[in-house]
């Protein structure tokens, strides 16, 4: 077999094998905490309403609506429920409002956001450096 081909196959298959092993390890690591059935329902609503087009989760998604991985920490269930069922105007808009959810949907969504907050994201997003000084 050609030397170049051997080298390429070794790099490719070796990397794929190591990658697959690491992904398997990571999957068993994250599944230590499973989402509750309510949180899983919330995730389905999150997907159906295409929330990811404006918001980011773990920093991935649309960059306009801000990251909501740890939003639960800031507001809690009650405030989130009232936000979803009675959505305010979008930032800078006079008419356009945030998407509305029913009471049931909003409870599922809050459960999902609570679960998201429980995931360890290695201190991402970083805390603002001058947070206290500004306020």
């Amino acid at each position: 077999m050609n030397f170049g081909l051997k080298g390429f196959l070794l790099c490719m298959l070796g990397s794929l094998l190591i990658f697959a092993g690491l992904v398997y390890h990571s999957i068993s690591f994250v599944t230590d905490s499973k989402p509750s059935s309510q949180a899983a329902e919330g995730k389905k609503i999150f997907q159906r309403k295409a929330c990811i087009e404006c918001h980011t989760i773990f920093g991935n998604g649309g960059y306009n609506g801000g990251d909501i991985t740890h939003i639960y920490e800031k507001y809690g269930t009650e405030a989130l429920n009232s936000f979803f069922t009675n959505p305010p105007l979008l930032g800078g808009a006079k008419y356009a409002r945030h998407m509305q959810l029913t009471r049931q949907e909003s409870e599922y969504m809050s459960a999902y956001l609570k679960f998201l907050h429980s995931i360890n994201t290695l201190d991402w997003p970083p805390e603002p450096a001058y947070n206290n000084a500004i306020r």
Partner: protein
Amino acid sequence: MIRSQHLSCKYALAAFLLFGLQGIVANGGAIELVLSDLRLPIDFTAGRSFHLNISIYWTLIGMMGAIYFFFSQETKQEIYIVKHINFNFWLIIATIGMSLGSLLLGFNDGREYLEAVWPLKILLAGSTLIFGYMLFRTYLNSIVPKSRATLISMLAGSLTLAIFYLPNIVSYDHPSIDEMMKYLVVHLWEEMTLELMGTGVLAALLINMTKADRRVAEAAIYLDISFMALGGILATGHHYYWIGVPELWIWIGGFFSAIQIIPTIVLLYAVFQTTKFESFSKFNYHEKITLMLIGSSMFYHIFGAGFTGLFMAYPPINRYIHGTYIVSAHSHLALFGVFGFLVLAVSFYILFTKVTLSKTLYQWCVVAIFSLNLGLLTMSAGLTIAGGLQAYCWYVFGLSTADTNTLIKPYLAIRILGGLMYSAGSTILTYAVLKSIWPQLKSIFTDNCYASDNRYYKERLVLTLFKSLIKKQREAAALLQKIKEIVNRSVR
């Protein structure tokens, strides 16, 4: 041109049409981000997912066509079951049509870049499986050396296309697993699969067009794709830093992302070493446009994807710029800048083997390429500044998302300006292609390619002639019989 190459022309045409459409649609979303109260007929979520999906689809369909075209050229034979090139084309066109249509109607799977609903994902996976299988069988049947680097590169890319897509047909309850799987397509398709396919296609094109030395090119391609596999696969880790997986990904992602710059440099070195650009003026109009598009792709490969990516994947920097518009700038430069221009180049080359490019349209194409580049750079500059401001406002000042959005609006307006320049370019280029190809449009969609230098066609031609000979013989026999009867009658 052999039959496989003729049949793959329609892929190139479809790529151009989708590319033209994408340029126009994306502007709507960009405007809506600045003017929040603007009520466009298409919802922002639908529009953005349309934009993300079409950007993958047109590069994918263009690349598939280019692979069929150059794979049959490099193996010097027809693709295995040649008529399936047609079947796969209509399958993927139907899938793309239904996916984009369903997204506009509001059916959304809610995973970025993978928004199409699952039945349509199965169709797309089916199409990539058929594609991989056809190429694998062609490779096995080929009589050229099996270790030919262009073939290996294209084949490895085509086979991994389906492998990385399959886990994404379903979504998972745990958001971290969802993210991990998503990057098999979002990262590994771009930085591994398309990269392998692109390298093979580019090498085949340059060997063919500039008569580069194959032996030198082979060694360079192997070096390039080996580093690509070594760096690209484990560099997926740079998407895994903050998604809830073990911390070891920060080390793996950081280290292998740094390696990823090597194949970029090797590729650049190889292109300049193996290509003999004796003088640019010797080339035809369409070859000049192809080279300009390849040049653009190379530029973004080095600066838009390579060095920017290296800088962004360094974990301490990534921590602050992750989740801002800087990432958006990078993905525009890397996805369109590298693969968009490359697919445009090869699709352009393929289509203009059928027709000639007039001088006027050549000039318009030059204007279009200039406009595309200027638009892309303006767009990315606007987005980079907007992203930098986001990081500064959020992580230094602790401003809210809404306040930050008000602050960055001027830079998002610059993005719109860039977007308009870009879509002017994309519209002109698509128009020039369509106008040139229009007289030949019917022949692209009919399977009537006969070339004398191909075994398949010789056999088919001989068979047809033989059949008509038998038919003529029967007619002659019938006529003879009649003559006989008449003669017999007159004798009596």
